[in-house]
């Protein structure tokens, strides 16, 4: 059994005319079983009157053990409209704490679905990248230039070195790397690529939604970046398949491992009322939940960002399907920076 022990200490000289709580979170085995992991996380939480008292704050304790590599701190931050507030600073490991990474590309055209990853292009389907898929690419995309395998040996062209992965996972793919199944290994990068995010402690609704750019949309509870839609058309335009693993994540040399779809792999905080599980937080601090509730139904009152409000969770988002190559449609809240 794991228990939480919180000790609170107030500071009278904290900036912004507030007090601060230092929460010492000790995750320890309460049953006397010494095999449990013990972690200390120092979290400074400023006390401020929230703008929206019905809106739950971001929960730094929701993250899986190993998802974060640095102590969570709070820091003063400026939101998109100039509002001064407090943000959590999260540094994610960049590698999932709750599952293995991969598999991605097939080695040959005889590979079966259980040996490979997936591909989605936003057109409603999720494909297993098995041998049949590789052989069918020219038909699927109605372009005879697709030839991802050697017709004599049946071997699939895979970017199996750092140089190849680096060359194929960027715009203007060299012709020698076209017609490749693209996969990279975390070993090439020395492990997960850490990333730091500032998330408002208390999410603040914006008057109008903010559009999603090229930056990450948020972070998952298991320590992985939640990325904007993958540029599948550019990928396909280079006659490449940037394979995803079954958790809808893949690796590039710059961003490391990141998710482009919600496959349930980070939905680790279940809800007691049958609601979908929490999988992460968007940059505006609102929670991102799985698409379906525990009865398999999808909400019918989502707004243009794919969010809505309820009494328990306040405003929150629901991820789209993997096949749609997205999580949320925009930010309803103000984001930092």
């Amino acid at each position, binding site marked *: 059994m794991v228990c939480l022990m919180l000790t609170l200490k107030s500071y009278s000289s904290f900036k912004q005319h507030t007090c601060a709580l230092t929460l010492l979170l000790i995750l320890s085995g309460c049953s006397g079983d010494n095999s449990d992991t013990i972690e200390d996380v120092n979290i400074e939480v400023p006390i401020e009157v929230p703008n929206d008292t019905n809106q739950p704050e971001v929960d730094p304790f929701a993250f899986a053990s190993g998802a974060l590599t640095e102590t969570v701190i709070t820091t003063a931050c400026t939101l998109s409209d100039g509002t001064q507030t407090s943000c959590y600073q999260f540094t994610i490991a960049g590698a999932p704490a709750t599952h293995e990474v991969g598999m991605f590309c097939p080695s040959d055209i005889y590979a079966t679905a259980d040996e490979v990853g997936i591909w989605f292009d936003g*057109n409603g389907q999720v494909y297993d990248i098995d041998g049949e898929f590789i052989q069918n690419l020219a038909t699927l995309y109605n372009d005879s230039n697709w030839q991802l395998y050697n017709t004599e040996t049946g071997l699939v062209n895979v970017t199996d070195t750092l140089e190849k992965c680096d060359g194929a996972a960027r715009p203007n793919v060299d012709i020698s790397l076209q017609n490749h199944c693209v996969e990279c290994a975390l070993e090439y990068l020395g492990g997960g690529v850490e990333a730091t995010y500032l998330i408002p402690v208390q999410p603040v609704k914006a008057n109008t939604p903010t559009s999603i750019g090229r930056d990450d949309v948020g972070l998952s509870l298991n320590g992985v970046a939640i990325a904007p839609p993958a540029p599948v058309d550019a990928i*396909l335009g280079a006659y490449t398949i940037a394979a995803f693993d079954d958790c809808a994540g893949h690796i590039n040399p710059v961003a490391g491992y990141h998710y482009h779809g919600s496959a349930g792999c980070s939905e680790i905080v279940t809800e007691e009322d049958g609601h979908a599980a929490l999988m992460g937080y968007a940059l505006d601090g609102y929670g991102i939940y799985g698409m379906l509730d525990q009865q398999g139904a999808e909400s019918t009152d989502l707004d243009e960002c794919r969010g809505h409000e309820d009494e328990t969770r306040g405003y929150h988002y629901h991820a789209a399907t993997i096949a749609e190559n997205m999580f949320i449609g925009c930010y309803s809240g103000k984001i930092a920076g």
Partner: protein
Amino acid sequence: MNSIAIKYVKVKKTLIILCLFIASSCILFAHDGHHTNKAWKACDKKKLSDSCRYVLQDNMLYKGTCRQVQEDLLCVRNQPIERL
């Protein structure tokens, strides 16, 4: 105009042309291929926050709202997928 000034104007022209070329290349790349995807095509002639819909696999109806994602408008579904 002396030769240094002429050279300066030529270099400036070349730089401007080069910048325009690079800029147009980036724009082309950013938009390249979105035409193949119905979720993006559904908002081709619409504006931000317009409602949108598209059909995939012949009988699956997606209904949502046009939102800007990266440079383009994307039809972000906000209703359950309907089977036609």
